[in-house]
């Protein structure tokens, strides 16, 4: 009996491990469509101001204003400062895919922090998504525009008709590590943007301000 129990436990553990390793995307089926079409949801950040909330582990909260402006050379500048004018960071996303930090306060000036912010915003701006390697998938409810990355892939998920952006996911091979939403587009600019990390608490919420 103990032998059976041990084997049962071993077997169960193996199954659990296997289940744990399986991808949440494994049941997606091939779909027709052009991955390039997802670009219609790429936000047009000509000149927009967002009230910004950042929540981090331990209930910590950071708020301020995020100005996003596209300059004449097509680079996108992003300046985050608090309500009283204190600047947290000033980033530039260049048209050739380059990225420049013009300013960041010392407390945030750590590579992992900068890379995280860079990747999060590139995800919502739909930058660095190579349509050549991209492909389409679907399940019963949604269409998935998939863009493989160095590690994992980015998933832009729309309704079946491809007319509404449901959510965005940056994923490992198995599961999402970042989820993002963009809602209520007006003139190509989403009124609401949310970015949420799954492995630790790091959430960014943007609400467009009328100026």
């Amino acid at each position: 009996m103990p032998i059976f129990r041990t084997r049962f436990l071993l077997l169960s553990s193996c199954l659990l491990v296997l289940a744990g390793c399986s991808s949440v995307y494994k049941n997606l089926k091939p779909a027709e469509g052009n991955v390039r079409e997802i670009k219609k949801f790429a936000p047009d950040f000509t000149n927009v101001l967002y009230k910004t909330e950042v929540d981090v582990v331990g209930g910590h909260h950071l708020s301020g204003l995020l100005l996003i402006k596209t300059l004449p050379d097509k680079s996108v500048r992003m300046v985050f400062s608090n309500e009283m004018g204190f600047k947290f960071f000033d980033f530039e996303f260049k048209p050739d895919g380059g990225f420049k930090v013009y300013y960041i306060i010392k407390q945030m000036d750590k590579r992992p922090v900068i890379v995280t912010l860079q990747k999060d915003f590139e995800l919502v701006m739909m930058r660095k998504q190579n349509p050549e390697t991209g492909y389409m998938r679907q399940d019963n409810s949604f269409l998935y525009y998939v863009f493989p990355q160095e590690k994992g892939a980015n998933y832009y998920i729309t309704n079946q008709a491809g007319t509404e952006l449901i959510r965005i996911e940056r994923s490992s091979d198995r599961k999402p590590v970042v989820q993002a939403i963009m809602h209520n587009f007006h003139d190509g600019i989403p009124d609401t943007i949310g970015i949420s990390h799954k492995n630790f608490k790091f959430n960014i919420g943007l609400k467009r301000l009328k100026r």
Partner: protein
Amino acid sequence: MCRLIFIEENIKDVEFGAVRFPPLGGCREGFDPRLTPTSSFPKEGIARPVAHLTFYKLLLFFCIVFGSAITAQAQHAGYTQLSDLTKFKQQFAEVAAKTNSIKSDFTQEKNLSMLSEKITSKGKFWYRKPNMLRMEYTQPFNYLMILNKDNVYIRDGQKENKVSTRSNKVFKQINKIVVDCIQGTALNSGDFKSAVYENKGTYLVSLSPVNKQLSDFFKTIEITVDKKDYSVNTIEMLESSGDSTILHFTNKEINANIPDALFAIK
């Protein structure tokens, strides 16, 4: 602000470009220990320690604490430097002694030089001796900050934050500075190099931090003071990047009756 969140030791791992942070405690928005002002005002060419200074002292330190930065412009167009500050100091002191409260509207402009962009916000400002301050932003967002003696309260949308200056070193410092200013002992340190200029209608007090901790964040703070009543018209904080934040005070009411409730922290 985010000092505890982003310090290197707190970053455990990076996965798919993401950062892992361990649970933390005690971080508050908007306050940075590195910005802790150690003492205070200028040692030369500046107004004497007078109570009225607490008005812009408070502002100044909130600007510092909440951030904001400043720049010393080499030249002040239309202004000439005061060589003898006696009159300025004396009159400022007289007015300051009589100023118990200030109520004002304000407009804040954040100028982003490289983006040729200006972010404007508006609100109301209340100050009362000895150390009570309320700044309420109403456009284009709602944000409230109250300083009342040992406590600071921030309401940002639905979120509320309270900080006791007793348990928080930064606010303890601020509190000390406020009291020092009121008592007139704060102006003897050398944290700022200062100069006073004048034109027809205003004085311009220029403060440049000599302390590296402060000068990392701003180059100069420039305060314009109305010659008519020695009240503060603007406070401009200039960053080394060329960006700046300026507060314009309008509809000023000196010694208006300000109810306690406005400074109440529940």
